[in-house]
């Protein structure tokens, strides 16, 4: 159940501040470094957004700057996760929600393909077994 289901009416809602802390712009420079590293060595990396002092306004600013790209992936695993490519290929905005729909963690991942999207060899092997089982029935 989300909090919205509880009928609390806030009489004096706190004023919404613009809330930009100036902590977001340096992240763009860090991202540039990480993309350079990805191109040079193939090493992927990530920025943990929930560990940084970023306000919702900062996050909006960052999201706005990075834009959205061609791919948007939705993963249903213990709550929804979205892995969206930004306008900069190789830079992915990853948001994990829990089963209640609350954001559990948020990352910007720099990789050709986000780690979570790749199928693990062991799982592929299990899939192969399934296929072979199906074929044996034909």
């Amino acid at each position: 159940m989300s909090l919205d289901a509880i009928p609390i009416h806030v009489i004096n809602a706190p004023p919404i501040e613009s809330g930009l802390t100036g902590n977001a712009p340096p992240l763009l420079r860090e991202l540039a470094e990480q993309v350079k590293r990805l191109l040079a060595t193939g090493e992927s990396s990530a920025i943990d957004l929930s560990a940084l002092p970023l306000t919702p306004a900062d996050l909006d600013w960052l999201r706005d700057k990075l834009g959205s790209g061609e791919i948007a992936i939705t993963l249903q695993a213990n709550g929804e996760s979205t892995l969206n490519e930004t306008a900069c290929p190789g830079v992915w905005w990853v948001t994990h929600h829990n089963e209640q729909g609350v954001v559990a963690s948020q990352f910007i991942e720099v990789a050709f393909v986000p780690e979570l999207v790749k199928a693990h060899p062991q799982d592929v092997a299990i899939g192969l077994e399934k296929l072979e089982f199906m074929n044996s029935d034909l």
Partner: protein
Amino acid sequence: MQGPLIDTLARQGVTRRTFLKYCATLASMMALPPSAGLAMAEAMAAARRPSVIWLPFQECTGCTESITRSHSPTLEGMIFDMISLDYQETLMAAAGHQAEEARHAAMKENAGKYLLIVDGSIPLGVDGAYSCIGGRSNVDILKEAAAGCAAIVAMGSCASFGGIPKANPNPTGAVSVSDIIKDKPIVNIPGCPPIPVVMTGVLAHYLTFGSLPELDDKGRPKAFFGETIHDRCYRRPFYDQGKFAKTFDDEGARSGWCLFELGCKGPVTHNACATVKWNGGTSWPVESGHGCLGCSEPDFWDAGGFYKALSVPADPLKIAAFAAVVGAGAGVAVSFANRAKKNAAKKAHQPITLDDLEK
């Protein structure tokens, strides 16, 4: 029973991606670098279930409830199932001599390797006779189990600091685990009850890196207890603006202002409630409109009243007793009584400076 964790999870319908996602979030909560999530997932997926012996002493089983009764089957709960829990009085089917035998067998089989979880304080009064299991005192059982363990996790405020059994006047002579065991690594996970994910975090760290996470001066994992409730409280801006709720139903309370004046112990309490929250991230005490009780700090029960603001005298019991004595002597000048009260108040006063709050 034995086997890599990922296989056991798969049998429970937990996919690898679910697990990866969980580890990424866990690593984020533990302030580990993002890459640690993957390392954690790989190490934990392959890990064999470690043997865990859980000893309950003077406790209310609230800590067990906190971890095992999350409202939906969470990964916390499942990973908790995935350790080889060889002795847990509340959860195990065995009873009596069979149960005690299971503990001894596990201790022998995994000597030097098992993890010991303790919840509840240990009474030392009357040679420990206040709390016995199978005719043996808690302190006796603890010493025996601690001798062969790799590390101890003190679950909850009672095991960590003595908790409510130790509250004034401590009739059973209750003490914490670290008061008795000195030669083993001990992690304190205080809280009444503690947050489930802290327990999982410590287990995950232990399975991934083979060591315990970094601890603060009170033996608590820094990742979860490094900051105060106040530091991470979403009502903090109101504190900074001097906007306080004065009663539980005034304008300020309705507007969601700071609960400092209603006795919130957030400024001196180190815990992760403000960030991790409770009940699957639904809410936490301050969000529900009640100040923090400070349950993860030593002796929170005796800290002077849950509804007394922090800068008032910390021990009103003492003042009341003193004032009663003064009152008994009839004819004593009122001014003298007042001065005595004032002095008593001064003595009991534990000032909180601005520096304390800003830490």
